[in-house]
């Protein structure tokens, strides 16, 4: 058996089909969520520290720049969650055929965006 496997991971030259896009966005969103962890830990610590800390967190979450970031992170969470469920289904052998794989990739991409808009409109996220 050949020990040299063909590996092609040059990000600048990969032309992605839709399932590939969903997959790479799964990685990007996961990375964004990890990068947000220190800030989330800080916010939770402040909010739990006392009424003053809680008030500070409320003001911070209400500010526009942070709202934009929250939007990005909410999308990251939704996309990562849905794409993750899709990958679990693929692991179980469900939806492996090309047509089905494309359809679920499309569904994942759109559902994450629709849910994002839904959350923002319902405004539970103010």
């Amino acid at each position, binding site marked *: 058996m050949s020990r040299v496997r063909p590996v092609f*991971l040059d*990000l600048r030259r990969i032309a992605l089909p839709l399932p590939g896009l969903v997959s790479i966005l799964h*990685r990007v969103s*996961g*990375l964004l*969520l*990890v*990068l947000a*962890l*220190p800030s*989330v*830990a800080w916010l*939770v*610590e402040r*909010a*739990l520290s*006392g*009424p003053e*800390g*809680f008030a500070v967190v409320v003001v911070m979450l209400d500010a526009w720049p942070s709202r934009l970031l929250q939007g990005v992170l909410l999308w990251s*969470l939704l996309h990562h*969650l849905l794409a*993750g*469920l899709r990958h*679990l289904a693929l*692991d179980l052998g469900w939806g492996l055929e090309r047509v089905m794989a494309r359809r679920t990739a499309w569904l994942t991409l759109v559902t994450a965006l629709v849910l994002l808009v839904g*959350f923002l409109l*319902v405004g*539970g*996220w103010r």
Partner: protein
Amino acid sequence: MSRHASGLMAWLMQRATAVYLALAALYLLWFVSVDPPADHAALVAWISQPLVRLGVLLAVSLLVAHSWVGVRNVLMDYIHPLWLRLALLLLGGGLVLASGLWLMWVVMVAGV
């Protein structure tokens, strides 16, 4: 453990943790959008429920494992110079572990 087995373990762990984290994420999304705590007292009352505290602690520890495997996978795929890969692994692992431990500490002592 052989390198193959450690890869298989990471693969399995990523999926097992994902199932719990998915449920936890759905619960938290529901919580913050439908029934967000109005003030500090309400937040502490919520986190002080034994089931919530335990559930959040479990979620954070599984999140640390899940994040570490994810960061490791991504770095191993795209970052090829060994020194840079090791530096970023250290940075990413440190960031995840420090945030996770801090979160767990905060959640453990809240309202106690």
